[in-house]
């Protein structure tokens, strides 16, 4: 069979509420099912075990929520984007509801390659006061490297390169929030709770992290950061 023309639809979605406890694999499978329920004319890969042609942005770990996550879906027929969005919305659990859909050029770089910048908010409970938190974060940032041990592996991050923007602490009603931007590199990506956790640990403060939310995923261009 000759390759047929396909249309590449980029969908923005969330991973919210209880669903933050899902794994990346679980999220992908659930979204593929919602696409089938929406009865969109999805393209199918060629080969021995054909499957839906879709590609997802960088994975979110179990426990981390996401406000602006993305996937690309290839369609066999052009369905007007607003209609595709409405059909997806009607077929997706509220915690993963799609927020926007638009067509992107077939040649656009893949989401996983393009989205190298992530913004996070790490919630810290009232057990740690905002001033203490500010100082703790500053102390960690004073070092040039951060060593993270996870699952038996040790990774060393060069803070200047993984943190393209200065993290800041905001105080909210019931505690405070560390707002930070990370750059995903070839050596992997720094988990924001690892940085905040280390800050709390070094300052002898309780591990009071309550929530981790990825608020944005961005592409890095010469002119700065851009949404996909």
């Amino acid at each position, binding site marked *: 069979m000759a390759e047929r023309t396909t249309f590449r639809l980029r969908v923005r979605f969330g991973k919210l509420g209880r669903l933050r*406890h899902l794994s990346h694999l679980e999220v992908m499978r659930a979204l593929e*099912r919602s696409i089938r329920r929406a009865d969109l004319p999805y393209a199918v890969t060629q080969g021995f075990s054909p499957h839906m042609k879709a590609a997802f942005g960088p994975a979110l770990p179990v426990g981390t929520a996401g406000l602006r996550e993305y996937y690309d879906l290839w369609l066999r027929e052009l369905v007007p984007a607003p209609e595709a969005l409405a059909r997806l919305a009607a077929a997706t659990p509220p915690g993963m509801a799609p927020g926007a859909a638009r067509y992107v050029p077939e040649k656009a770089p893949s989401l996983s390659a393009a989205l190298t910048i992530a913004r996070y908010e790490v919630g810290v409970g009232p057990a740690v006061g905002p001033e203490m938190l500010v100082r703790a974060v500053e102390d960690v940032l004073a070092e040039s490297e951060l060593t993270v041990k996870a699952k038996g592996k040790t990774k060393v991050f060069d803070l200047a390169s993984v943190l393209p923007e200065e993290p800041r602490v905001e105080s909210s009603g019931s505690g405070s929030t560390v707002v930070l931007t990370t750059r995903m590199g070839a050596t992997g990506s720094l988990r924001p709770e690892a940085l905040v956790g280390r800050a709390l640990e070094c300052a002898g403060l309780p591990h009071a992290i309550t929530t981790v939310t990825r608020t944005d995923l961005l592409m890095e261009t010469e002119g700065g950061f851009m949404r996909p």
Partner: protein
Amino acid sequence: MRDDMWARVEPLLDGVERPARYLDSEWGVRVRPDASYRVALVYPDTYELGMANQAVAILYDILNEVDGVAAERCFVPWKDMAAAMRAADVPLHTLETLQPLRDCALVGVTLPHELTYTNVLEMLDLAGIPLRSVDRGEDDPLVIAGGPCAFNPEPIASFLDAVLVGEGEEAVLELVEADRAVIEAGGTRADRLRALSGVPGVYVPTLYVSADGSAQPGCGAVVPADAATPRMVTKRALKDLGSVRPPTCPVVPYMDVVHDRAVVEVLRGCTRGCRFCQAGMVYRPVRERGADDIVHDVMATLRCTGHDEVSLVSLSTTDHSQIEEVLRRLSRSLEGRAVSVSLPSLRVDSFGVEMARLVAGGGKKAGLTFAPEAGTQRLRDVINKNITEEDLLGTIEHAFGAGWRRVKLYFMLGLPSETDDDIRGIGRLVHKVLDVARENTPKDQRGGLKIGVSVATFVPKPHTPFQWEPQLTLPEVRRRQEILREAMPRRGVDLSWHDPDVSFLEGALARGGRELSDVIEKAWRSGCVFDAWTEEFSLPRWLAAFESAGIDPVALASSERDPADALPWDHISSGVSKRYLLRERERAVAGVTTRDCSFDGCTGCDACGDLGLDIVLGGASRG
């Protein structure tokens, strides 16, 4: 209330494996906060196993259609979550509205096999419900069980308030209606139980006593304690599957559950008459759904769930009289969608392979599975497995010729009358299968050729012609395994065993009586839970529990029973008469086979007459 409870549960999730087990909020959940009568549907194992259970899905669908009734799911939390819940004093609750089980009107438990018994106790304990029926008070829910184990409920009867025997679609509605009427009238718990025992197919253990207190374990009749209670509880069965609407919008899990796919039932029952098979005896007669209904439900279920695979399930799907038509229609409708159809089991003939070819299309060929069960014709005649060596070898030739490269064969060790030569016969048969497979495989592909051989220990089950037979003792199993190992081809075979320790326990629990409640409780108290999980199972702990209860599990599993003695499940009827079972037993001894009554005329098991049923083929009664 719901939010309060979630606020207590959510912090526990950060520290446990696979939190997706505890989230709810899947596509297709039914949340009915205003219902006045709440039913918890429990599967006594983890979420990923329970979500594959069709009975739970069916009852969930049916009960949530009833005004004022809510049915919600509950599974047994894994050990890490159970410990966290105990430490935080969070009671076991349903997923949908986080209702503590002890505040539900009814807790309905499916009992798929004996190895879930300790999980039932774990569930009750986590819920704060007294373990034994006699210790429960007016405010406790009624705990009702159903499923395959209901056909001998005695071992676990002390922990249950009632047992529903047979198919639940109609009975569960009658049962809930009867209970609501009693509650409305201000009745007591005793009134509720009495009302349940009036529903056909419902057994209320506290209304029955053992006829002979001194009876041997595993022997002795159970009789009603008073004249108002039925002497015999007869299974429920639907006359025609076309009369109930199967669930086409079931809950779609996030987690990678066992059998993660859409399921459509194509027929119920199986009348091939294998003498070791409990399902084949107790779910008689065969009732097929019509091809139109099946095709419609497949398409509706796929649309509603978004699954990419649908399984056509039953005890013997390729025996459906219209299966070829169904598969052809489905492959046309599903063209180009990357959605696949699967068949759980295949019959051993070319037709079976052709059906597998139809569902595989041009795509991936998953392995094929066949169950000759025994290695010699003599023994296959004893067990009434009506396939010959030629059938099997012809099927293998066909399958490898059609491009399959993997097959798996199922056998049983310790079938009644088995000799060492029968065991070597398995080896001889596998040799021949391997030869035929090689001959029908292109030379360059022969290197990686493997035949899977899976061997289980035969466990005699209640309500079968072999219910009086002894099970092999463990040392004897080991001796026979050695013989089999030596008889197997050295190369090209992957031999695997179903753990004989587990089969031994299954055997001891399957044919016991009410005296086993003490053993089960002691086992659970000593830490037995999730016994169906290989790494959790501990035979020594179970043996200690038997010993401290003063019951010999070897005698229970491995001594032959006298057909003249009463059995602990004699008061439960599957419709198949004891007379028929005895006759089948005699025919087994004589090596005489019995035909399939769905196609070759009634063989007199009495299920149809006693239950007012008939064989239904292609959705229409044979008449």
